[in-house]
């Protein structure tokens, strides 16, 4: 068909015509090929302008239209409609932008005119090749997603829901309400924020058309306008929203207190909490941050934070129960554990680690003191009998876990009494037998059978007696030899034998002078025991330096206090004998050389430094080994002489036989033995149930990431009281343990790293049975037609402004902190208080903190002037006679009744000083400045520097984009403006829409604004969404990609690139296809297609080449 093109040049008033010579352009256009008519007009977009085009189409039979005017963003739709109304396909229209691209960007008339001609020429050439395209209609899903439950989100949700359309309201906090719920009064009317907000919040909570998803976040969005899909992650709340009645009993019993975010850390909340009493939903949530470091560090996984939290509440019996969930040895471990937990304790980064071990001991002692109730035997639910050989910590821990699983368990012990090294290796003054007996009795009361004096030599026998599984935990019970001459002389004793004999009450003949060789706990135990038995001169000989002694340092200190001599950097060379009777020991001095494999410096003998010590006895304590003679023959050993087992399952080479503790690891500490016993119990249970032994082991533990130490005041840990030296004659226990008061105080030093301590007190307290500590997060998918984003703002953190002293100087607070303080339901119940509890007599309020500052935010935060003046009013209302200074740069009182409010505050007597303060200092320069905060500022209206001493400073902090605004923007494919807030489609004419159709932005996520503006935007966006819902369907872009199946090679490059998932692959034809409703016409696939099979409709190669040629004319 013959091309008949009409060209229309718009003056845009003087916008274009002031620079571009429109007549010349028109004349130029008139001469272009196929141009039938070229006209210019003052306002082409006006009705008469449009009418011109309509008429020409009709009268001159035009079939292609070019308008040269403003941006297509502005009026492309207008002119396409004109074409359509005149019977022309709207895609036969092309627009040239001679305003933004010409007149607005140059002052040079002729250059602008030349460029306008080029653009018109390009448009004319291009439109020649344009083809009619058909737009499609798609139905609109009538459901709406509102993201963010502040006042904007609430308002929008209610507007839409009231029209009986479904709304999903997603809020990431446990309650809706947003920042408005934190505010006290609202300017300029001074009505109570809560009073006007909470009715709306409860409406949301009960509205039949609103599905409230609190404590949830949108994690994925797909689809397009009218047909979105969103995935929403519901975080684990650990409380059933439907069952919880909001009674608060759980929080009453919760032992963990942490700073309350809602009160900006000015008040405390429990680990199970609701942010504030009027929360919607009125449901609690548990704050779990992961396992605390102490629990992660414990080889047995003991929940130390749990029992410490309960001790801090005086709930000592409940505290022991927490420990017993994991293992039975509170009293034992409370005394002899090597406490790896304390090394990891986060409190140690502030001052000193919490005395976790001593607290454990305290609760065991307490129970023993008040009397323990007999444990109820555990019901036997399983048939398979388990035999445990050895009754040390590993064996008993394994027995304990298995009996709790319902297995019949028997423990075989060769010695006359159970307990292993706990009984025979650790002296009474360190671990009283009654403590051990109590804990073993507890195990027996549960139903574990312990057969003492019963050595096991043959595993077959055990299996033959009907046991299905065996755990070998026989320990490492023989002493290692020194390998020096005469070490078998009479008078040389091995530490373990020595300690065992003493504990069995067998008399050991000791002389006056005793030398102990070694530096481990056994050496120190032997030395102190020898001392107690009457030896007058006891020496410990150790080959490295003091810092490297492996025994617990407190034990070494106590030994020295008791009179034991330390000979460090010395090693025995030979035992000196006289008539085969011990006479002394020869040693050599050592020095420290290069570090060895353990990282400690290797001791090297100093040649010729030998010296003799005359002693009556030598006790050897240089290590222990596994006694193979006591074990069944058929087992395999490692090169170290310990039993060989699978590292994860602890199974030996014999099926059904497991081993752990010292017999596998070599001599180790008690808690490692307990941990091994517990692992073995898991394996045995799995083995007996026929479940895979290895799957999911070792388990991964979620350690808490970061522990806030803000505001933690340093406090040293209490010293452990010990028995007076003169009273240490016999074997009375040396360490005396904490009393209740000390224990509670010490427990309060715990930082509650994991927040929830999993003490389970809330579960016990909840009558509704709403608490589920095992809850996991879940993800749901919803389908919606429109999305409203109302994610709000963050308050600016003024810490980087060092000169304002926030976080450094007391009584410098932020605006939001002040809101909580002045709020009747806040942490101070509405009292304005200084750190010392008194009321401020003078308060300085500093405007524009973080706003109007190139270093932070260049924009004005819009609300600070007004809320600052509100603060001025409230301070004077709450603290009669208080003087208030407002430091401002410019006062912006530009809303309804705002100026009147300013007048009111002026008349009330608040003093306004025009000037941005330079600093707040506590360095006084005169007596009246003493102990005050001094605001140093220029009073710019006087033209002088002033120093104003005040008691309190409120920083009117900026409103800034949420810290995760970038992720949210990406999630919803919306833009951000230079200031970081979400970008609206048009700042004046389309302030709530975004460049992504169907997605709207409202409230402070779009820019800083006050409540009325946020509410108005919310209603506006709701109206926009409802308009689409009531229309029922929408047109989608016709300029999509199109794939020529003949040419497509099926390489799928386009398939992978498409950001809208609009391309599918036909497996049968081996070609790609475009879903035209999903396609946005972005052109990525077109550019990427290697075979030229992919064309962008309305952006064909022909059209683009013509356009380029046109520009180049």
């Amino acid at each position: 068909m013959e091309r008949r093109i009409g060209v229309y040049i718009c003056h845009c008033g003087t916008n274009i015509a002031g620079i571009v010579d429109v007549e010349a352009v028109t004349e130029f256009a008139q001469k272009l090929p196929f141009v039938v008519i070229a006209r210019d007009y003052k306002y082409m977009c006006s009705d008469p302008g449009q009418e011109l085009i309509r008429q020409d189409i009709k009268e001159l039979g035009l079939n292609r239209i070019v308008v040269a005017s403003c941006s297509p963003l502005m009026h492309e739709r207008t002119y396409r409609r004109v074409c359509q109304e005149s019977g022309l396909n709207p895609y036969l229209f092309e627009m040239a932008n001679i305003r933004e691209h010409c007149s607005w960007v140059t002052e040079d008339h002729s250059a602008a005119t030349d460029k306008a001609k080029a653009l018109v020429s390009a448009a004319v050439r291009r439109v020649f090749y344009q083809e009619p395209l058909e737009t499609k209609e798609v139905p609109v899903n009538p459901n709406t997603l509102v993201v963010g439950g502040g006042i904007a989100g609430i308002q929008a949700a209610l507007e839409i829901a009231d029209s009986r359309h479904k709304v999903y309201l997603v809020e990431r906090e446990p309650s809706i309400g947003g920042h408005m719920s934190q505010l006290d009064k609202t300017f300029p009317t001074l009505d109570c924020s809560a009073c006007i907000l909470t009715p709306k919040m409860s409406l949301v909570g009960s509205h039949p058309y609103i599905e409230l998803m609190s404590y949830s976040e949108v994690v994925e969005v797909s689809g397009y306008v009218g047909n979105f899909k969103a995935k929403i992650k519901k975080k684990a709340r650990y409380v059933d929203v439907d069952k919880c009645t909001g009674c608060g009993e759980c929080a009453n019993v919760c032992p963990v207190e942490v700073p309350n975010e809602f009160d900006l850390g000015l008040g405390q909340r429990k680990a199970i909490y609701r942010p504030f009493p009027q929360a919607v939903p009125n449901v609690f949530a548990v704050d779990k941050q992961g396992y605390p470091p102490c629990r992660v560090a414990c080889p047995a996984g003991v929940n130390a934070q749990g029992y410490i939290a309960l001790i801090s509440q005086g709930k000592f019996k409940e505290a022991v129960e927490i420990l017993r969930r994991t293992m039975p040895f509170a009293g034992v471990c409370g005394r002899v554990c090597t406490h790896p937990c304390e090394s990891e304790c986060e409190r140690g980064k502030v001052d000193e680690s919490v005395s976790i071990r001593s607290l454990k001991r305290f609760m065991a002692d307490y129970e023993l003191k008040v009397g323990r109730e007999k444990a109820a035997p555990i019901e036997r639910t399983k048939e398979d009998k388990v035999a445990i050989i050895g009754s040390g910590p590993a064996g008993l821990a394994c027995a304990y876990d298995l009996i709790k699983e319902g297995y019949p368990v028997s423990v075989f012990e060769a010695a006359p009494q159970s307990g292993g090294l706990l009984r025979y290796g650790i002296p009474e003054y360190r671990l009283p037998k009654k403590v051990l007996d109590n804990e073993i009795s507890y195990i027996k009361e549960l139903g574990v059978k312990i057969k003492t004096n019963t050595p096991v030599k043959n595993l077959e026998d055990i299996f033959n007696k009907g046991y299905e599984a065996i755990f070998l935990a026989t320990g490492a019970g023989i002493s290692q030899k020194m390998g020096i001459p005469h070490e078998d002389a009479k008078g040389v004793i091995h530490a373990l034998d020595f300690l065992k004999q003493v504990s069995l009450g067998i008399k050991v003949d000791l002389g006056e002078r005793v030398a102990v060789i070694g530096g481990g706990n056994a050496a120190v135990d032997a030395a102190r025991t020898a001392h107690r038995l009457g030896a007058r001169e006891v020496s410990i000989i150790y080959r490295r330096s003091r810092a490297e002694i492996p025994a617990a340092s407190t034990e070494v200190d106590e030994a020295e206090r008791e009179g034991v001599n330390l000979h460090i950097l010395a090693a025995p060379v030979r035992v000196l004998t006289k008539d085969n009777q011990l006479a002394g020991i020869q040693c050599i001095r050592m020095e420290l050389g290069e570090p060895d494999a353990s990282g400690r410096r290797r001791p090297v003998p100093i040649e010729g430094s030998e010296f003799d010590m005359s002693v009556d006895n030598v006790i050897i304590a240089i290590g222990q080994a596994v006694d193979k003679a006591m074990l069944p023959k058929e087992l395999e050993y490692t090169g170290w002489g310990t039993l060989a087992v699978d590292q994860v399952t602890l199974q030996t080479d014999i099926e059904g036989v497991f081993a752990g503790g010292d017999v596998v690891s070599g001599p180790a500490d008690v808690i490692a033995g307990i941990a091994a016993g517990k692992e073995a119990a898991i394996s045995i249970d799995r083995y007996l149930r026929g479940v895979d032994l290895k799957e999911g082991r070792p388990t991964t533990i979620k350690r808490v990431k970061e522990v806030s130490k803000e505001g933690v005041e340093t406090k040293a840990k209490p010293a452990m009281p010990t028995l007076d030296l003169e009273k240490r004659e016999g074997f009375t226990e040396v360490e005396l343990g904490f009393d209740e008061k000390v224990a509670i105080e010490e427990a309060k030093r715990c930082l509650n790293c994991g927040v929830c301590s999993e003490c389970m007190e809330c579960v016990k307290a909840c009558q509704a049975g709403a608490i589920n500590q095992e809850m996991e997060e879940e993800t749901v998918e919803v389908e919606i037609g429109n999305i409203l984003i109302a994610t709000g703002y963050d308050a600016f953190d003024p810490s980087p402004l060092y000169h304002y002293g926030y976080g450094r100087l007391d009584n410098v607070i932020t605006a939001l902190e002040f809101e909580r303080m002045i709020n009747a339901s806040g942490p101070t119940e509405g009292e304005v208080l200084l750190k010392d509890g008194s009321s401020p007599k003078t308060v300085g309020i500093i405007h524009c903190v973080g706003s109007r500052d190139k270093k932070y935010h260049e924009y004005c935060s819009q609300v600070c002037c007004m809320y600052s003046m509100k603060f001025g009013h409230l301070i004077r209302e709450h603290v009669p006679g208080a003087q208030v200074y407002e430091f401002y740069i410019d006062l912006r009182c530009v809303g309804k009744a705002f100026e009147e409010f300013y007048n009111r505050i002026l008349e009330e007597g608040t003093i306004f000083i025009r000037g941005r303060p330079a600093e707040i200092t506590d360095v006084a320069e005169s007596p009246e400045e003493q102990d005050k905060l001094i605001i140093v500022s220029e009073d710019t209206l006087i033209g002088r520097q002033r120093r104003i001493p005040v008691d309190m400073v409120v920083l009117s902090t900026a409103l800034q984009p949420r810290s995760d605004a970038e992720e949210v923007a990406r999630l919803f494919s919306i833009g951000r403006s230079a200031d970081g807030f979400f970008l609206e489609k048009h700042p004046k004419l389309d302030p709530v829409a975004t460049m992504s159709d169907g997605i709207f932005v409202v409230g402070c996520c779009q820019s800083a604004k006050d409540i009325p503006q946020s509410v108005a935007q919310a209603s506006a966006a709701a109206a926009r969404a409802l308009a689409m819902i009531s229309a029922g369907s929408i047109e989608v872009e016709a300029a999509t990609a199109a794939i020529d199946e003949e040419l497509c090679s099926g390489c799928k490059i386009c398939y992978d690139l498409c950001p809208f998932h609009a391309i599918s692959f036909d497996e049968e034809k081996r070609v790609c296809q475009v879903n035209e409703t999903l396609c946005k016409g972005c052109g990525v696939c077109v550019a990427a297609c290697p075979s030229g099979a992919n064309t962008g409709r309305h952006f064909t190669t022909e059209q683009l080449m013509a356009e380029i040629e046109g520009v180049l004319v």
Partner: protein
Amino acid sequence: MRYYSYFPGCSAEATASPLGLSVPPVAKELDMDLIELEDWNCCGSSPYGSVDKLEATCMAARNLALAEKRGFDLVTPCSSCYITLDGADSHLKEYPALRDQVNQALAAGNLDYHGGVRVRHLAEVLYSDVTPDVIGAKVSKSLKGLKVASYYGCQLVRPAVGFDDPESPRSLDELVASLGADVVSWQLKARCCGGSLVMSEQDLALELINKLLRNAQENGAQCLVTPCPLCQINLDAYQSQVNSKFKTNYNLPVLFLTQLIGVALGIKPNALGLQRNIVSPMKVLAPYL
């Protein structure tokens, strides 16, 4: 060994001679080779920049051009020389017209400026290149128990130079701590001492100096330490003037950073010019010498 071109500055030869004396032995102990810039001239300091910008820039540029020949970083222990040389360098880079003029002038002295040298303050080199850790490891006489107030002054940290915070710097504190000394926390550690105005507006300068000494003393300082010659002279040589004007009785030694480091490294007092300090530091340093 680290190599640098060294620019002592005029003061280090005269009123700040303890600085000039103490830098070389300390540098040697710390494996730094400070090669003095041959025939360097006055940096073109701020008084000069307040009288004639182009001439002042030429003064600085002659030094920069001389330093370019060797190529190492140009290190000065003087805060004023530091910002003058560094400021001239960045202005020459930022303003091509100025650079053209300066290069025309330099040509008259057979020199040219290409902008190939980095200007650095000795304190920054000690902090960033040598590092407190390494200095700490070389300490032979720990200053444990000595309460030291680090005085940064202004031009070491302002206008923003990037290596330390302009309002609440910590580099000197870390260096002092590495020597084992107790770091005094005081509010005015980076506040102005009056600089060269002490010569023309003595009353004003003495007021500022008094504020600094009072704040340091109130926070328990036994002595102050500073890298800057001007600051040191103001606080040290004018301390008696302050005492008579304000009826105070300060007796606070003011050490150069290199002097204090030198003491901890076990360098002899003579070599550090300790006798040249007006307020004698011998008493407070006695336990460490």
